[in-house]
């Protein structure tokens, strides 16, 4: 009974944030599964041209609709800001296309809540997924950014309150993708990031917006490379921090 009370208390302060654009085919099913776990759900509709908002609302999510298309990370940040305003202490972010399984959420949260050496962010990691382009991107970005993470682009994450505050900050608003820039910012804020292997399904429909073609990959790699080189931790930074 004590464990159930603790779980209930935990789910009351936990919210799932889902950025979505034209995901009317999958969003209702996802929200319904999450509601079965008694989780609050915020869907941020990135100016969809289909019925994504209506489907999400019908399934029980709170829906925020952006007035123009602004990108997945902006939508996610909007949801995280809304979560902070509402007083949530833990936020889970996931994709709307059915790749991430709600059944993995308790495992991610249990890592966040463990008693020893608690991380601030737990990343659901699946390095087996992805084509040659994605694997190449990860290798290059790992080298440029200095981040020691296997899955750089997973959107399946759990953030504690400290991490939510960091990524909700205006300094993260102009970032275009949810990976390198955000992970570097979290790392530089001296927050602990940990990965947990999860299985990811193939996309139910549609395709990756970043890795759909070599031109989008080139744009993404150029952007991420510039950001990595500019914002990574350098030896001089480490020395300065040591002296403080």
């Amino acid at each position, binding site marked *: 009974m004590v464990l159930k009370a603790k779980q209930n208390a935990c789910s009351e302060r936990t919210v799932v944030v889902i950025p979505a654009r034209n995901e009317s085919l999958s969003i209702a099913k996802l929200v319904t599964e999450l509601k079965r776990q008694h989780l609050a759900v915020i869907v941020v509709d990135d100016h969809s041209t289909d019925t994504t908002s209506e489907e999400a609302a019908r399934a029980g999510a709170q829906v925020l609709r952006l*007035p*123009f298309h602004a990108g997945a990370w902006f939508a996610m940040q909007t949801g995280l800001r809304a979560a902070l305003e509402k007083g949530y202490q833990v936020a889970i972010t996931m994709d709307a296309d059915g790749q991430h399984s709600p059944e993995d959420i308790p495992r991610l949260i249990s890592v966040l809540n463990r008693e020893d050496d608690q991380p601030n962010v737990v990343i659901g990691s699946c390095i087996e997924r992805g084509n040659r382009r994605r694997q190449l991107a990860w290798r290059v970005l790992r080298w440029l950014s200095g981040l020691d993470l296997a899955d750089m682009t997973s959107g399946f994450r759990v953030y504690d309150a400290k991490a939510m505050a960091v990524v909700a900050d205006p300094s993260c608003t*102009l970032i275009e993708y949810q990976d390198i820039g955000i992970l570097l910012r979290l790392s530089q804020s001296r927050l602990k990031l940990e990965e947990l292997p999860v299985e990811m399904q193939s996309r139910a429909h549609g395709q990756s917006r970043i890795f759909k073609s070599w031109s989008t990959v080139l744009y993404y790699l*150029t*952007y991420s490379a*510039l950001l990595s080189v500019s*914002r990574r931790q350098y030896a001089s930074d480490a020395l300065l921090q040591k002296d403080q």
Partner: protein
Amino acid sequence: MSISGFLVGLGLFVALMIFLLIRRDRLVVMHSVWWLGIALMIVVLALFPELVDLGAKAVGISYPPSLLFMSAILILVIKLLLSDIDRSHDRRRLLLLAQKVSMLEAQLKEEGHTHVDNE
């Protein structure tokens, strides 16, 4: 210090400034591609000034420094145009936001919420 050394230093300084601006979140990342390209051009032309002579000969300009000035003006004009296009895009979004805010304020008023600031 030779002029070549000065220009190489200038190009590297521009590149360093761009990276610092990105690091301090003062510059949108992809806007830096343009400026880093300019920094690269400065360094390349400083190391290989004969490229200006070759370029002038290829386009039929008899006085090579004219090509440098003309190229610099052209690059700045294009950059100005791209900046205006970007600003137009941002202005449209700002106006959409203003409309949305006004509609939300009206809705809040209708629902009987307290004073709405009309600054």
